[in-house]
């Protein structure tokens, strides 16, 4: 069934189809609609889940960790400052290997107080042990939400499904809603490998000495590596059932491309339009969309970009004092490409705090990328007022 829905409700419907058992969340713009709809579903009985009310995001994630440890399928959603407040508990979910799924609506961090989109909130949580999946459309949001539970539970790692504030969260798009039977086949009830058992009380996450701690991080690292491959399998299964797959990365019109733009989130859609136009004009230009940020699909990105002349990475985020964060990661990934095949990498920082990224912005980037003969030493900021 196709419905025209906002991205926030695509999340809620995905969570419902996943037959989540526990939801605990604290409201924050622009995430509120996600949990409003879920709380109504819980209240009406449409969703047989326990909605745990809390006084902060930190408690929300703590409740999720506990519920997940008890063996339930668990969900939360947050944004920006709320996500930042969760930080300690994000580590707890990651290192504790609780397969919680969270939707994070990308919203710029204050101050200056701002409710519009950029990616700094989720990217600041890069090292908390969460898988991160960035979405471009509301259909991808719904599909990814369902996939996220399968992935999380397969490798015992938490997954963050990420979508742009307002461009997706509050914008209506047609979305194909899969049948419950189909989702049930794809995502059976969670079988927790380790769970709290009141008849055999044990402490989860207690003190670990130096002689054991490192192995746990290694196991987590292995699980991340597994998640890379596992996502492709899950995505393939999803395609069999729905005809749709999304990929950890998606190369677009990259055949013989001399210049490739690398994007994530809704900037991708805008870039697709410009690339289509320029391809028609005969320009050798392509696009690489990065969906999965953790685990980082370095090998796939290397394979995709090897031999390309120039790569322009568009970052709706910045690591102050360094560069755009995707650019930095891709630069590191490309280091292993032999120098002759290694593309020049241009980093562009744009669209922070919800500033509009228009086709003209993309055009400007492409013009600048073609114009420079040596790779720039620093990222360029696009659209700054002079």
């Amino acid at each position: 069934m196709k419905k025209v829905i906002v991205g926030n409700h695509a999340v809620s419907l995905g969570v419902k189809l996943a037959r989540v058992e526990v939801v605990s969340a604290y409201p924050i713009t622009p995430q509120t609609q996600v949990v409003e709809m879920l709380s109504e579903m819980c209240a009406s009985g449409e969703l047989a889940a326990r909605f745990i009310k809390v006084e902060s995001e930190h408690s929300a994630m703590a409740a999720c960790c506990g519920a997940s440890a008890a063996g339930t399928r668990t969900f939360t959603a947050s944004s920006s400052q709320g996500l930042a407040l969760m930080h300690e508990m994000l580590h707890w979910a990651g290192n504790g290997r609780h397969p919680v799924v969270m939707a994070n609506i990308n919203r710029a961090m204050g101050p200056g107080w701002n409710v519009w989109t950029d990616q700094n909130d989720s990217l600041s949580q890069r090292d908390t042990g969460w898988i991160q999946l960035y979405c471009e459309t509301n259909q991808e949001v719904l599909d990814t939400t369902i996939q996220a539970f399968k992935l999380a539970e397969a490798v015992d790692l938490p997954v963050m499904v990420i979508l742009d504030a307002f461009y997706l969260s509050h914008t209506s798009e047609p979305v194909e809603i899969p049948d419950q039977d189909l989702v049930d086949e794809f995502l059976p009830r969670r079988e927790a490998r380790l769970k709290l058992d009141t008849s055999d009380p044990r402490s989860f996450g207690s003190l670990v000495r130096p002689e054991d701690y490192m192995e746990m991080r290694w196991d987590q690292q292995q699980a991340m590596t597994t998640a890379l491959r596992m996502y492709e399998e899950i995505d393939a299964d999803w395609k069999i059932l729905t005809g749709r797959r999304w990929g950890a990365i998606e190369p677009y019109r990259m055949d013989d491309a001399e210049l490739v733009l690398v994007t994530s989130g809704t900037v991708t859609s805008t870039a697709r339009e410009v690339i289509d136009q320029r391809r028609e004009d005969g320009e050798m230009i392509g696009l690489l969309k990065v969906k999965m940020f953790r685990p980082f699909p370095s090998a796939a990105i290397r394979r995709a970009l090897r031999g390309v002349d120039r790569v322009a990475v568009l970052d709706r985020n910045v690591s102050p004092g360094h560069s755009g964060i995707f650019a930095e990661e891709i630069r590191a990934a490309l280091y292993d490409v032999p120098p002759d095949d290694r593309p020049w990498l241009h980093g562009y920082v744009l669209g922070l705090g919800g500033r509009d990224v228009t086709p003209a912005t993309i055009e400007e980037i492409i013009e600048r990328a073609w114009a420079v003969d040596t790779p720039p030493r620093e990222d360029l900021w696009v659209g700054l007022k002079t």
Partner: protein
Amino acid sequence: MPRAPYVEPLVSVSRGSTRQNRTGSWKYIRPLYRDAVAPCNRACPAGVDIEGYMNLLREGRLDDALDLLLRENPMPAITGRVCHHPCEVGCNRREYDQAVTVHSVERALGDESLSRPHPAPPPRLHSERVAIVGAGPAGLACAYHLARLGYGVTVYDEAAEAGGLLRQGIPGYRLPREVLDRQIERIASMGVDIRTGVRLAGEKAQAELEGYDAVFYATGAHKGKPMRVEGEDGPGIVAGLEFLKAVNRGERPEIGRRVAIIGGGNTAMDCARTALRFGAEPVVVYRRTRDEMPAIPQEVDEALREGVEFVFLAAPSGFRWEDGRLVEMHVTRMELGEPDDSGRRRPVPIDDDGYTIPVDTVLTAIGEDTELEALPWSLPEKWGSIIVDDFGLAGAERVFAGGDVAGEERTVADALGSGKRAAMGIDRLFRGGDDGGRPAEVTDLRWGGDGQVSMSRWRGDDPVRRTNPTNQVVDIEGLQLAHFRREPSHQERHRHDAVDFSEVNLGIDMEQAIAEARRCFNCGVCNDCELCLILCPDVAIVRREGGGFEVDLDHCKGCGVCAEECPRGAIIMTREGL
């Protein structure tokens, strides 16, 4: 799966539970389970363990609830109907939504006890014999408790039938005769010898009572107080209690159509509603206002509903007769002045302001006096009441007194309490008070230290309060109201089809009584609600064998969550090492 058999994530999970970490050493305060006293128990003049039987009834333990009620109150089917239930005024729930309707639950239990065969008489354990003069509520209560304690008891009453004011003063539409008869029968069946139609006074009394080891005097107060108005002894002016007595003997006194009742207590209400039932048009004349009326509010409501008229702030000041027949009562208007000793504002006459009311009969119901001159002994008295000590002992050796003849609060419940108190006093006289570990201090016997005495405490076998019992009364501040749902009380059904002498109030049924018992907060006493067990963040609350809970002090960190969250104030925090 792309990865070698994936069993489970490598995470830190303890081999055993955290119980090996004895976090109890961190605390400096610790929770203490204690069973305290609910305000209803303290307020009950009969010393009934109200909270206790509510607790048992809540669990559906009907037999145990009845046992607990009957160990303190010999006649719940009666008090459930006629008591002024100060328990409901004391009820903490009153400040939350509506008080538990204790009297209706008590009545349901009382009726249940009367519907069962009378139990076997209690064993006669002791040789001593006690005489009781007066078979009203006080005398019958004393007899009942003494019989249960194992004594031989004989009750004397000058009336033809036992019951005292219950029979003579209270109309049948409030207290049906069959309930009264059955309740008295139940007491007689315990081996209590009730001798009616015997007036014991003067030397005859001394001779008759000499053969007993102790005497309890409960002869009541029967003489209507004078109004101190000129002409009050004239024709047509009758003591209300005498009128009720005549009606309750089966007579139908001639009162005419216009009947004025002077007073605002229960006797006044009984007179007015009885007069109404004889076709009269009664007017209650009260010198204060409705707010100050000592009558049970529900009785006033019923009187109003039935059509009794009320004149407030008026007092009789004269009468007029024509041809020897009363025709008019003159009343003076009153206003309320400063509060008197009772806390009620004193009525003050407004000079030269009055009017007349046409009357055929005036019934006075402003209280009754005792008749101490009939006593065989001279006993110390004050304002017509025999002075007694904490155990009901009057000024002479082995002579005890109770009920209206020795009481300031002249109610059925107070009479029952005084009878119980004297039974303990008599038991103490014979057994020295330390038999079976009887408490020596009367305050230890009294609910909350200053309420009525408790037979459970006298016998030392309270089945409800077993954990660190304390006499502290838990008020509403001591409760955690967030855990209670608002729920209206279960209301009694009233019969409104006819105004006659069959019972008006039909009470509630047992199912409703159990539901009402579930509304009880069980103030101060653990009722196994399990909230502490659920909320303790350290899983340091454990079930105790035989019911209730205890604290695992090896693991309790002293956070105080249990004490804070206990809905009924049955847990307090105490300092370590004390």
